[in-house]
């Protein structure tokens, strides 16, 4: 058996708390993060049926503000910010001039000319440079990532736990809205396919909030959840992950994210290319598949049919809820039909799979 060694990754602010809870730590894009505390299976189930708490403080936060901030973002982001209400949040990819995706982000509108943007940890430097290079006079872009921590409380019982911990003030918080909290915010967002909240606060307050949530959540079966289950949860909900389903060479239309870009806008980087692609049709498409024969698909495995290469697996895993082996892949659009049988090349062997509709899991109600 071979195992990889960790090479000096960065530690999360709650590193010691994770060790106290028995976390198995591992490397994730240069960060030492909890992979799981007890088991991925158990933590995945907790989020689907009760609640789980994630430390995702590795993620990046930028504050964009100043006169012209709205106009700057309208010009550079693929959705309309003007109609986003104060304290509302909106998801979208960051698109480059070639129509590829630099990252996917959530933009929180704090005021007329003040926006908070949450970006992926691995893209903090790249995204910051992207915003800075485009910012006009009077608009400042500040990277708050060093100072801010982020927790995600996810699962059907997360509202009960949140209200018990922080009071009824957060009761009427709607999906994709936020309210101020302790020098940061609580937003009703997440990356698991369940109801839940993301709590952004200054790092120095992180431990206190972590402790209060566990005290409130104990009676509801709240568990700490690691990055292993974070990945199986988002995969089951068919949420794309940068570096897998989203890359600088894949367009939002190919990724099935047309709903997250507004092609009727006057301008944003890559718009003309995306319009052309919309008119001509994409040549490859993101699909979901389920293994028919035995084998677990993994990132980078080839997709074939009758010996012909159709594309590549971008994410794949055993899924705790159903016990199935599933994955997402990009395949040529002619073959991207639900029900089509395909082969996944696993260690040199063609293993049968079938294309299924996404998501693999949808929350009831």
């Amino acid at each position, binding site marked *: *058996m071979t195992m990889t060694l960790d090479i000096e990754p960065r530690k999360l602010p709650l590193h010691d708390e994770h060790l106290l809870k028995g976390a198995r730590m591992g490397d994730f894009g240069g960060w030492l993060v909890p992979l*799981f505390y007890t088991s*991925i299976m158990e933590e995945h189930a907790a989020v689907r049926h009760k609640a789980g708490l994630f430390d995702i403080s590795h993620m990046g936060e930028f504050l964009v503000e100043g006169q012209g901030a709205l106009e700057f973002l309208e010009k550079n982001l693929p959705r309309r910010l003007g109609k986003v209400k104060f304290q509302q949040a909106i998801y979208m990819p960051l698109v480059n001039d070639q129509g590829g995706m630099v990252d996917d982000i959530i933009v929180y509108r704090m005021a007329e000319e003040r926006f908070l943007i949450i970006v992926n940890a691995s893209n903090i430097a790249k995204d910051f440079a992207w915003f800075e290079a485009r910012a006009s006079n009077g608009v400042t872009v500040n990277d708050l990532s060093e100072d801010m921590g982020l927790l995600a409380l996810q699962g059907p019982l997360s509202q009960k736990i949140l209200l018990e911990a922080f009071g009824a003030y957060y009761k009427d918080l709607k999906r994709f809205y936020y309210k101020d909290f302790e020098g940061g915010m609580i937003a009703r967002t997440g990356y698991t396919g369940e109801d839940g909240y993301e709590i952004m606060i200054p790092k120095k307050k992180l431990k206190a909030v972590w402790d209060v949530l566990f005290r409130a959540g104990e009676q509801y079966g709240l568990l700490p959840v690691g990055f292993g289950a974070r990945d199986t949860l988002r995969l089951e909900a068919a949420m794309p992950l940068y570096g897998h389903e989203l890359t600088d060479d894949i367009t939002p239309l190919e990724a099935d994210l047309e709903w997250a870009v507004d092609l009727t806008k006057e301008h944003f980087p890559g718009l003309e290319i995306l319009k052309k692609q919309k008119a001509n049709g994409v040549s490859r498409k993101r699909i979901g598949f389920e293994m028919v024969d035995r084998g677990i698909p993994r990132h980078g495995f080839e997709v074939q049919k009758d010996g012909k290469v159709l594309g590549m697996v971008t994410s794949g895993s*055993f899924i705790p809820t159903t016990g199935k082996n599933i994955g997402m892949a990009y395949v040529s659009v002619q073959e991207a039909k639900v029900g089509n049988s395909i082969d996944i090349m696993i260690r040199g062997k063609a293993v049968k799979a079938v294309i299924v509709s996404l998501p693999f899991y949808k929350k009831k109600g």
Partner: protein
Amino acid sequence: MDFPENLRYTKTHEWIAVQGTKAKVGVTEYAQKEISDVVFVELPKKDQIVQQAKTAAVVESVKAAFDIYAPASGKVVAANAALEGNPALINQSPYGDGWIFELELSNAGELNNLLNAKQYLEAVQQAPQH
């Protein structure tokens, strides 16, 4: 952690139980803990020839695949089919019901390259701690 005295070990965390010219192979208690929930096992085929320190099987957790190396060269005479239906046997009983395959040894001299329980324990203690 339990490392039975009667087994030989590899630095890559396989064990081998030699009985005459035959030997059963599995992964150690340390390995099953490192892998965590085993959800898939790819077994070698009967009569397959395996070589010492070369991949003979694959054990997968939810998130990763781990190559299992043959502790010694030989011909596969049996594979533990029970693992196909219940891969968690590797977690529950790494030295018992979680065995992976059985070999007819082709070169008993290779066994001298392997570690005894005490040497393996030392190797594990030097491994990076999480």
